[in-house]
């Protein structure tokens, strides 16, 4: 039951609303205006030049492609690993508490810090992977993981797969635990095999959780910044460059504010588009 008392409602919501407008709404609007060269310039004049320049900029196109590859690969692996581990943890295992702690651990690490550690792990000389390869006699020469373009990008993806999958796992585990037990019991009575009960009971029940996990994870991966910055810095060249880091570079290193804003707007539009189903599902449950 809710109270129809508009003024009190506004009273409680107002501080948050003011903050939302000043520290979120205004900068977002300013960025859009900047991208059209309409704000904080000596002679504001509407122009699409920043956007037109995007499609001729090899680094932007490479970053766009990298971002798509990065996000789709990490999210796919997060879902596969997250679902597998969630299924394992949902069993009647001993020491479940311990395993759950282990399962969450990577996600507790700030992404910047994770990036630094993986950078060291993949380091050419004193790094862990090369240490294992050489001591194990698998390689004579060390591999320059972060110096070779394709390997650098794959290493970055690998590191983020490691760090991000517990997030998806947590959401799916919550989903698994919400599936009513009697559905499995009914399935067992009807003689369903484990695979059948997985396909016809677990998966359909988990559908919404999977959608939500995938969308939220996609959003997180789209805006991932710290790990890319600390692990590869987008390099070598722009082999592992992504849109969030490229925006930062144009804003704060090259001071191309209008151009940087246009890259950020492209990223934001893509992200909002991706999040529409999530917004719908959540709001529908709310009303």
């Amino acid at each position, binding site marked *: 039951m809710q109270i129809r008392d508009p003024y009190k409602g506004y009273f409680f919501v107002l501080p948050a609303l003011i903050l939302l407008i000043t520290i979120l709404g205004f900068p977002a609007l300013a960025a859009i205006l900047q991208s059209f060269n309409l704000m904080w310039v000596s002679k504001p004049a509407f122009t699409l030049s920043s956007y037109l320049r995007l499609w001729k900029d090899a680094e932007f196109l490479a970053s766009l492609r990298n971002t798509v590859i990065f996000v789709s690969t990490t999210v796919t692996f997060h879902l596969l690993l997250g679902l597998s581990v969630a299924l394992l943890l949902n069993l009647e295992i001993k020491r479940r508490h311990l395993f759950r702690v282990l399962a969450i651990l990577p996600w507790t690490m700030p992404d910047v810090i994770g990036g630094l550690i993986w950078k060291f792990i993949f380091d050419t000389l004193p790094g862990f992977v090369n240490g294992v390869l050489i001591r194990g006699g698998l390689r004579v020469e060390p591999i320059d993981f972060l110096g070779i373009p394709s390997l650098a990008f794959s290493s970055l993806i690998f590191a983020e797969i490691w760090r991000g999958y517990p997030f998806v796992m947590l959401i799916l585990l919550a989903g698994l635990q919400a599936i009513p037990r009697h559905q499995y019991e009914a399935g067992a009575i009807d003689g369903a095999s484990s695979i059948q009960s997985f396909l016809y009971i677990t998966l359909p029940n988990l559908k919404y959780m999977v959608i939500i996990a995938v969308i939220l994870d996609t959003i997180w991966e789209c*805006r991932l910044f710290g790990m890319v910055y600390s692990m590869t810095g987008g390099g070598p060249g722009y082999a592992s460059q992504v849109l969030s880091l490229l925006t930062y570079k144009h804003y704060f290193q090259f001071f191309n504010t209008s151009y940087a804003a246009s890259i950020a707007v492209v990223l934001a539009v893509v992200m909002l588009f991706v999040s529409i189903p999530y917004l719908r599902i959540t709001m529908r449950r709310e009303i």
Partner: protein
Amino acid sequence: MSRRPTFWISIYLALGVMGIFNLLPFYWMLSSSFKTEAEVASYPATLFPKLFTVGAYTKIWFQEKFVYYFLNSLIVSMSTAAFSSLVGAFAAYGFSRFRFRGKTPLMTLFLASQMIPGVLLVGPYFKMLSLAGLYNTLLGLILSQITITLPFSIWMLKGYVDTVPVEIDQAAMVDGASRTRTFLLVVLPGILPGLVATIIFAFLLSWGDLLWALCLISAKSKQTLTLGITQLVGEFRTEWSTIMAATVIATMIPAVLYLALQNFLIKGFTEAATKG
């Protein structure tokens, strides 16, 4: 269900593999941080420290401004968490208990604002803070961090307020308490576990931030831990033991918080993420 022993063996095997995979970077970070400078630079790498030393820790801790980094991170994260949870709790109560014009669009707006990438906001934010004289201040950084944590806090807290029966509010108000008093003295204590989870979650988001600190702070004495450490990498280059000691310090607080409060957090977080 009864299963064969081979089934359970493979399950524990899989869990073991998962554990090793998850722990490996932690192991590498910890073991490297206890190595000597000479050993950590040796090639090929040693997989266990030959000689344990805490030299890297004392070195990093007494490094010029490291203690500042640590304290700044604590100040910024705690202020962000406290402020966004307080404002968020008010809004959550408003959204949970009242019907008013524009409520649904407003809630959608708060939800959608979580999807705005930081890099879109950080440029204009830099300009705004410069104009307001807040560039390179912790206050400016705290304000910016709230943009990340506030929308999340509102939605997470609303889920908790919804679980408190309206009858409790009504009983308090019949006893003569005002709305605000009811909220502060009856509803807030009632959602204490959820409130704690929200505060900690905001703290962790803020603690892990790099982007905002990188763009809005220039003075060394005002840098946060994540920012300070990325800058140290430039200085120390191959002195990985020192860098790893710094990362251990930066990872310790979130890891301890998660582990100590995990049941709390997982419940609160998954409910917020999934129920909305």
